[in-house]
């Protein structure tokens, strides 16, 4: 392979990207060396098994991915603003919408939520870590290396260009030769392994590690949504693993699953993809529902309305999510009966979702709404999501879907649910738990500016797209005709508004790091209801000096009334904690090497990498490290200084 085939060439935008990547890397290396931070990086972050640090790393990586996906989005919107724009050519546009979709779903939405889960869930249930801290670190590194494998396709080898759904036969070896599509397959495969492990980890954590006496129906709603999400992950991700593996076999080893030769069946890919893909949608929306429930109930200063109904609604949605996948390809010609079945099951999801919406409104009834930034994101979610939801029902009506399918109506719908649902939740949750994570709040004033830019920009961007879709504009076209121009210009303006909102958000992070007041108590918002607010800020690495006994929902409210804390001095006992380890990082780095080899079909590299991974697993098998105990004195010292006693 020639060097110019290895690196992507001939695109000024990509050269600029390469230069900026090189500059950022060099400056990071310089910073680390100059301030002698290498040891710190390794000890504190790369080898950590602490769920809080892993959560933070997830969130930071997800923010970086949001930036990348957002830049992709703005480039697309620029290209689509006017007819015959020549900002991007067809091929480049195809690559960008493919990476935008994949990055946003797999490498932004999921990791962001998993990051929040990682940080919050063990604290909410009164656990000292997740069930399998080692596995948790492994999950994170597999996600990060998977994301890196996917993202280097930008400069090395070429990006995938068959859409994030990668329909075969287009994505097969015949019509998409070269490494691009392989990057998609292996990047997703690698991070998928981590997600599956996360699912198992959280299920065990929530089922087995709750604070003494906390019953299932006393768990905070975010914990509930995490449990159900984990359940979906465990049952949905193996489907993706297999589907990706089958396409990899097709592309690299000449199998005939989804090919046009050998009687392959291309649409089987679509079937498998959506059997995973639809539950995936709920994997990114259910935790969001959980976050909104927490934030609304905290800032409405009121118990969640219809807690049990909320939980059952989540369970019902999760169950239905496995029964609706065909609505992504109603137009495949599967016949009226098949379409009717899936049409009805799809619309049924609206019922539990509606219940949730009304329960949130019920929570606001007779409340005291405190308009903080976190609450504003949560409030903006309700009307925005309803628009996305009702258009979703319209799309679920199969015979009408023949006109909506593959158009901007669809694009508008899923952005309305995914941005108003998932992205708003990520912002809301991050702002809400930020003081717990970093010991200071985000600046509220900047937060409000960022909120208004983003939310108004969002509606301006996507609302017109419903209409341009009804006017016959299909998704994924790289240039528009004059008739579609007015609405597209509006849309582009909105997209840039969202860009400004995000920029202000990032600026708020930097600004607050410098200027915000440091937190003195653990209960930063003064109306925390769940156990995470019972810990001091910053949270000691073992979370809880003594585990509280829980016998009600909204555990911290009761704890406060009774004047109890999570540090009862005379009950302190030594705490067992796992020790840090570099194994997960190294193992996944080898996995990355192996995946990279497979992308370019260099078998020596792929097999070598896999063997190294096996060796790492053997080392792990013989590793009988039992962790260590934190002594009572040390706990008391830590707690006294954290609680300023």
């Amino acid at each position, binding site marked *: 392979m020639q060097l110019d085939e290895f690196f992507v060439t001939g695109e000024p935008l990509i050269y600029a990207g390469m230069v900026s990547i090189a500059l950022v890397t060099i400056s990071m290396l310089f910073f680390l060396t100059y301030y002698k931070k290498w040891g710190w990086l390794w000890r504190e972050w790369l080898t950590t098994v602490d769920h809080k640090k892993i959560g933070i790393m997830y969130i930071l990586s997800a923010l970086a991915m949001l930036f990348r996906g957002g830049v992709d989005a703005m480039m697309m919107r620029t290209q689509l603003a006017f007819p015959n724009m020549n900002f991007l050519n067809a091929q480049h546009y195809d690559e960008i919408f493919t990476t935008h979709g994949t990055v946003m779903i797999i490498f932004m939405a999921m990791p962001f939520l998993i990051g929040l889960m990682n940080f919050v869930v063990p604290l909410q249930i009164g656990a*000292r*870590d997740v*069930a*399998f801290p080692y596995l948790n670190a492994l999950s994170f590194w597999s996600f990060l290396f998977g994301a890196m494998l996917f993202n280097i396709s930008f400069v090395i080898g070429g990006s995938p260009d068959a859409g994030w759904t990668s329909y075969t036969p287009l994505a097969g070896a015949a019509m998409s030769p070269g490494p691009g599509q392989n990057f998609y397959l292996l990047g997703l495969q690698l991070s998928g392994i981590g997600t*599956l492990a996360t*699912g*198992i*980890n959280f*299920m*065990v954590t929530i*089922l*087995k*590690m709750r604070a003494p006496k906390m019953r299932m129906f006393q768990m905070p709603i975010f914990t509930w949504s995490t449990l159900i999400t984990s359940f979906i992950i*465990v*049952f*949905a*991700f*193996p*489907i993706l*693993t*297999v*589907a990706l*593996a*089958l396409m990899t*076999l*097709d592309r690299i*080893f*000449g*199998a*005939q*699953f989804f*090919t046009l*030769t*050998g*009687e*392959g*069946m291309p649409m*089987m890919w679509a*079937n*498998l993809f959506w*059997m995973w893909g639809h539950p995936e949608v709920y994997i990114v929306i259910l935790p969001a529902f959980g976050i909104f429930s927490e934030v609304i109930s905290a800032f409405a200063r009121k118990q969640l309305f219809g807690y049990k109904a909320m939980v059952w609604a989540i369970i019902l949605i999760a169950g239905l999510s496995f029964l609706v996948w065909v609505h992504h390809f109603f137009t495949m010609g599967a016949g009226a009966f098949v379409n009717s079945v899936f049409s009805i099951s799809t619309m049924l999801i609206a019922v539990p979702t509606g219940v949730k919406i009304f329960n949130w409104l019920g929570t606001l009834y007779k409340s005291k709404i405190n308009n903080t930034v976190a609450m504003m994101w949560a409030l903006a979610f309700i009307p925005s999501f309803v628009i996305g939801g009702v258009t979703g029902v319209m799309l679920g009506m199969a015979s009408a879907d023949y006109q909506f399918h593959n158009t901007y109506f669809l694009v508008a719908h899923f952005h309305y649910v995914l941005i108003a649902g998932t992205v708003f939740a990520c912002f809301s949750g991050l702002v809400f738990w930020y003081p717990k994570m970093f010991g200071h709040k985000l600046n509220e004033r900047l937060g409000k500016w960022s909120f208004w830019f983003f939310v108004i920009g969002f509606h301006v961007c996507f609302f017109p797209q419903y209409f341009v879709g009804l006017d016959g504009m299909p998704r994924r076209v790289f240039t528009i005709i004059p008739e579609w121009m007015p609405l597209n210009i509006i849309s582009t303006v909105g997209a840039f508004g969202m860009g400004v909102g995000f920029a202000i958000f990032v600026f708020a992070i930097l600004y607050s790091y410098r200027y915000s007041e440091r937190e003195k108590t653990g209960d930063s918002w003064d109306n925390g209801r769940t156990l995470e607010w019972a810990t001091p800020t910053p949270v000691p690495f073992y979370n809880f000096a003594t585990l509280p006994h829980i016998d009600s929902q909204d555990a911290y409210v009761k704890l406060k009334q009774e004047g109890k804390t999570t540090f009862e001095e005379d009950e302190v006992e030594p*705490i*067992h*904690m*796992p020790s840090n380890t570099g194994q997960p990082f190294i193992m996944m780095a080898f996995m990355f090497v192996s995946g990279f080899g497979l992308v370019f079909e260099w078998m020596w590299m792929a097999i070598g990498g896999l063997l190294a991974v096996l060796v790492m697993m*053997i080392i792990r*098998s*013989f590793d*009988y490290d039992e*962790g260590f*105990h934190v002594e009572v004195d040390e706990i008391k010292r830590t707690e006294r200084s954290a609680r300023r006693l």
Partner: protein
Amino acid sequence: MSSHELKTGPLEYRTEEGRLSILGFWIFLGAEIVLFATLFATYAVLFGRTADAPSPGELFEAKTVLIMTFMLLTSSFTCGIAIHEMRRGSVKGLRNWMIVTLILGLGFLGFEIYEFVHYSHEGATLQSSAYWSSFFTLAGTHGLHVTLGIGWVILLLIQLTQRGLTPKTSRKFFVIGLYWHFLDVVWIFIFTSVYLIGMVV
């Protein structure tokens, strides 16, 4: 993360770590069911799409398949006995029955490799048609699981000699026991829906 150890019950359940790991493994098996179910679904949908390659009815041999099935069923039984011995506290029983399991597993694998080589000589390979791609992937994934299981058992036998029966080693053996039985369950379905139905239809 509590280090409190129970004083009664099977060794593998005495520590919190043991209980969590076993539960986690059950959940993992749930995921494995879906993984194999996806392969089965692919197989079912692609059934009959043999293109120019021979049809399964022409190639499958009842005798080989039955021998393989009995080997795997027996290995699942001996593995169960090994765990039973472990719970009786017998290191020797555990080790010996595990070695029997290992040998049966290797035998199974040998037959499977023979079978695959035989088919490919007859013109049915991963590349020859959609049907054969799905057949080799389904049976091959199971075979790969068996191979990993064998490697795993060997590692555990070494650890058993090094450390004897502790909550940790017994937990590991219990987990591999679950894994091995599970592979047997999967094989029962491969035997039935791939081989038997393939020979009937």
